[in-house]
Structures are given as structure tokens and as C-alpha cells.
């Protein structure tokens, strides 16, 4: 009898061990070395993220971004790196929900914590991530904070379904709230993040800049579409090692490098813009007013994002100082002859021509 039930007992024990998998913390081994940089990666994976390279190999965008983030974290000796991977909902035998997020904490190039978690169970956006960051971050007061976000375009007009398996709505406003909460620890100033890298489509619109500029003066984003192979994070390794160049200059060199990388592997348009909102903050209110007024005039659901410069009603309000544009037109298609980009994307209805009526 005992022999007969033995396999089931063993199986049950194996399930229990697997389910009791907890954080891998190595207490007492945390380094006392200084931490000059805090890098936070939020990688969204609850969606359609498959893409192919030109040889036909299949990749998952979130997993590629995760691999690179791990390599960055492994290589930076004077930094701490937080990685949050938000994956699709999963459950055991349909009834038992399993943790669908993975949090990693690296310090001085070593992984100290790997903790699975439920990433949508908090009452607030980025609730778990904020607590995790507040608990573990050891960044010095003079240290720099960088945020990388990888995902699909964040809805900018109103919260709607963004995740595929979770039903919590998401929007650029909710994202801003989440980041405010995430980086509130050790807050020294209003612009609490030194640089935001937004690896999504259409991150360079007036509404996104308006929402995120109170958090950071430097934002790298794409006003157009962005291929799912995403903005590389690895160039950050060598650039953060070269300390003498200054942070702004480092971000500029990073932007240029990731732009070149993207142009090498795609035929579709590549537009990356480094926004220095310090230089046009005073113009953002009027730009935002013109942009929202325009949306009211259209009175239709916006479904296409165009270069704002083509809209004569918006063009006069577009800041150019503080907007460094890296642009390569599409190699094919209607826009292949487009020579330059204003650095600003504006949403319009599908049937709207490039020059909307007054």
C-alpha cells in the first residue's frame, strides 16, 4: 500500500517545495561599496511581444530587454539595479493564481535578491515595486537615478486595457503616479529622476512630455513607431564607466548609440528624441493647450500619430530648443522621402490628412 502511494507523496512534496519558492536573499553579503547610480528597469511582458530578426529568428521583446538588463546589472560595479518583469497572469490548475512578476535587485554587479510577486495586486500602480525600491535602495544623495520602461505605447488620453491577461487599466497619468510613488524615497527635488528612457511607440507626444516632465528633465523617447527590438540598454555600461563626460552628455551619447543600433537592424522608420525639458518647460503649457484643443476639434477617436509639424495649428507651439532629434526615415513606404522630424508626435483620426482643416 505504502509503495503505491509513494509516487504521489513524492509528487506532492515536489509541488510543495516548488510553491514555497521564496526570495533568494544572501544576508550579510551586501557590499559596502558606494552606489553612484540607481537604474530601475520596468519590463512589461503581458502582451503581444513576439518579433523576428532579419534572419527569421523569433524573439520575445520583454525577454530580450530582460537579458540586457541583467547584463547591465552584472557589469556596473558602482550601481544598484532594480529589474521588474511584469509577465502574463498564470495559475496552477486554473484555480490557484501564481506570482506573475519577477523582481531582481543587484548591487555592485551582484544579484542579491530575486523575488517573485503579484504585480497587479497592489491598490496603487507600481505599489509592490515602490515598496521594494524603498526597502532596498542604498543610493547616495548625490547619486543618479535612471528609469527604463519597456512596453507597448502607453495610452495617453484615458486609462484603458493595456495588459492582455490582467484587466487593470493603464494610462500615462497612472504611469506618472506610479513613478512618483516609486521614486519618492530620498526625494531631494521635484525632478527626482535624472533620466527616463521610454522604449515604446509614440512616447514623444506633448501629452507624454507634459505628464513626465515634472519627474525628469531628461527623457529619451520615440515620437513615432518603435520596433519591438526596443532601445538597447547595454551601451549604458561603457558610458556610465566614463565618469568625466557629465550626465547630460552621457545621455546624448547613449541616445546616439541606441539610435545607430536600431537603424542597423530595421527598415522601418527610426525616430528617437532626447528631450531636455529644462529648456522648454515654460512652453509646455501652451503646447499642451493647443494639443488638447486640437483633439476637441477633431471630435473623433485618434488612431494615428503623425509628425506634429504637419499640423499648422500646433506647429507654432512646438519647442525646438532642448529637443535633440535622431531620425532615419523608413526605407520603404509613403514616408521614405521624409527628410526630418520635428521630434514631436501628434495623434489624429485615421481619415485625417497630414494637414487637418482649420
Amino acid at each position, binding site marked *: 500500500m505504502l509503495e503505491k502511494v509513494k509516487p504521489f507523496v513524492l509528487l506532492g512534496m515536489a509541488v510543495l517545495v516548488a510553491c514555497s519558492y521564496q526570495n533568494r536573499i544572501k544576508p550579510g553579503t551586501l557590499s559596502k561599496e558606494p552606489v553612484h547610480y540607481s537604474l530601475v528597469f520596468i519590463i512589461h511582458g503581458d502582451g503581444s511581444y513576439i518579433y523576428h530578426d532579419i534572419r527569421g529568428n523569433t524573439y520575445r521583446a520583454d525577454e530580450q530587454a530582460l537579458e540586457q538588463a541583467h547584463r547591465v546589472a552584472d557589469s556596473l560595479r558602482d550601481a544598484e539595479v532594480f529589474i521588474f518583469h511584469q509577465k502574463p497572469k498564470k495559475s496552477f490548475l*486554473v484555480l490557484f493564481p501564481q506570482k506573475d512578476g519577477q523582481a531582481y535587485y543587484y548591487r555592485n554587479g551582484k544579484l542579491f535578491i530575486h523575488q517573485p510577486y503579484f504585480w497587479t495586486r497592489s491598490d496603487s500602480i507600481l505599489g509592490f515595486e515602490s515598496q521594494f525600491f524603498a526597502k532596498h535602495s542604498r543610493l547616495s544623495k548625490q547619486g543618479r537615478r535612471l528609469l527604463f520602461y519597456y512596453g507597448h505605447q502607453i495610452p495617453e488620453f484615458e486609462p484603458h486595457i493595456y*495588459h492582455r*491577461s490582467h*484587466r487593470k487599466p493603464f494610462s500615462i497619468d497612472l504611469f506618472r503616479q506610479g513613478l512618483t510613488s516609486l521614486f519618492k524615497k530620498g526625494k531631494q527635488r521635484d525632478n527626482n529622476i535624472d533620466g527616463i528612457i521610454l*522604449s515604446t*511607440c509614440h512616447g514623444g507626444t506633448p501629452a507624454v512630455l507634459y505628464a513626465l516632465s515634472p519627474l525628469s528633465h531628461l527623457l529619451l523617447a520615440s515620437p513615432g513607431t518603435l*520596433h519591438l527590438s526596443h532601445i538597447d540598454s547595454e551601451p549604458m555600461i561603457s558610458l556610465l564607466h566614463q565618469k568625466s563626460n557629465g550626465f547630460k552628455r552621457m545621455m546624448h551619447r547613449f541616445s546616439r548609440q541606441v539610435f545607430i543600433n536600431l537603424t542597423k537592424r530595421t527598415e*522601418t522608420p527610426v525616430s528617437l528624441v532626447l528631450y531636455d525639458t529644462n529648456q522648454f518647460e515654460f512652453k509646455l503649457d501652451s503646447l499642451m493647450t493647443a494639443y488638447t484643443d486640437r483633439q476637441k476639434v477633431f471630435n473623433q477617436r485618434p488612431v494615428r500619430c503623425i509628425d506634429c509639424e504637419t499640423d499648422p495649428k500646433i506647429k507654432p507651439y512646438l519647442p525646438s530648443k532642448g529637443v535633440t532629434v535622431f531620425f532615419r526615415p523608413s526605407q*520603404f*513606404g509613403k514616408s521614405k522621402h521624409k527628410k526630418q522630424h520635428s521630434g514631436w508626435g501628434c495623434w489624429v483620426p485615421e481619415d485625417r490628412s497630414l494637414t487637418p482643416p482649420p
Partner: protein
Amino acid sequence: MRWLPTALILSLALFISNPVYSGDASVKAEHTLRNYLNQTNLEVKNADLSAEKRQILNESLYKLDNVMETVEQMPGVTEAEREHIQAYRNSIREKTDELNGRNGYKAVPDTQLDAFSNYVVQDFEQADSRITISLTTVLLIVIILLLL
């Protein structure tokens, strides 16, 4: 056994209403579409002659457009979904126009057909939220695509 169809329908309804599975199924359906275009890309690259490459691309895009048209005309497809399918179809048509030099486009030169094929794949693999078609509709597209 009379209860069997009812049970099957109920199970399917439960399956689709469960966000875990419906989300997963719609993602898989979208991936099937992307894999379809990737397969075309590989066939184009393996073809020796330019005429053959052009034909493969034309046939593949034509088939995809036909499938979208079939689904678009089906009852139960919402107005918003029709808009999205139309946007897809416009994008497909622009590509066939460019491939063949119609409607103001210069035909893609023979030497650039491989690059154009990459472009077709990549244009459907952007980090936007372009696909907001319901699970049922995407599944229909995939089923018809696989059957043709």
C-alpha cells in the same frame, strides 16, 4: 449524451471569459499572424529569382488581405473592429502598390526585394497598440488564414 454540446459551449464560454486564457489566446493569434509574415520573408530570401520573390510577396499579401476582407464582412464584427481591420488592409494595399509600382509608387527594385520583405515583417512588429481587435475576430482571421 445530449448534454455534450451544451457542456462544450459552456466550457468554451468559460475559457474565453477567463482573462488568463483569452489574453493568452489573443496573443497567440497575433503571433500566428506575425509568424505567417515571417514565413513569407524566409521564402522570399530563399527564392533565387527576383520574379519569384515578387510573386511570393504578392501572393502572401493578397491572401492576408482576402482573409481580412472576409472577416470584415462577417456579422458581429463591431464598427471599431472594422476600423482596425480597414487600417490593416490599407497598410497591406500600400505595400502591394509599392511592390508593383502602382498608385504613385515606383516599383521596388529587384535588388531591394529582400529588404522590402524585412520591412513588411517589421512594420507589423512595432511597440504600439495597433491590434485592438477582439479575440474572436483575431481567431477568425487566423483560422481562415490557416485553412486557405
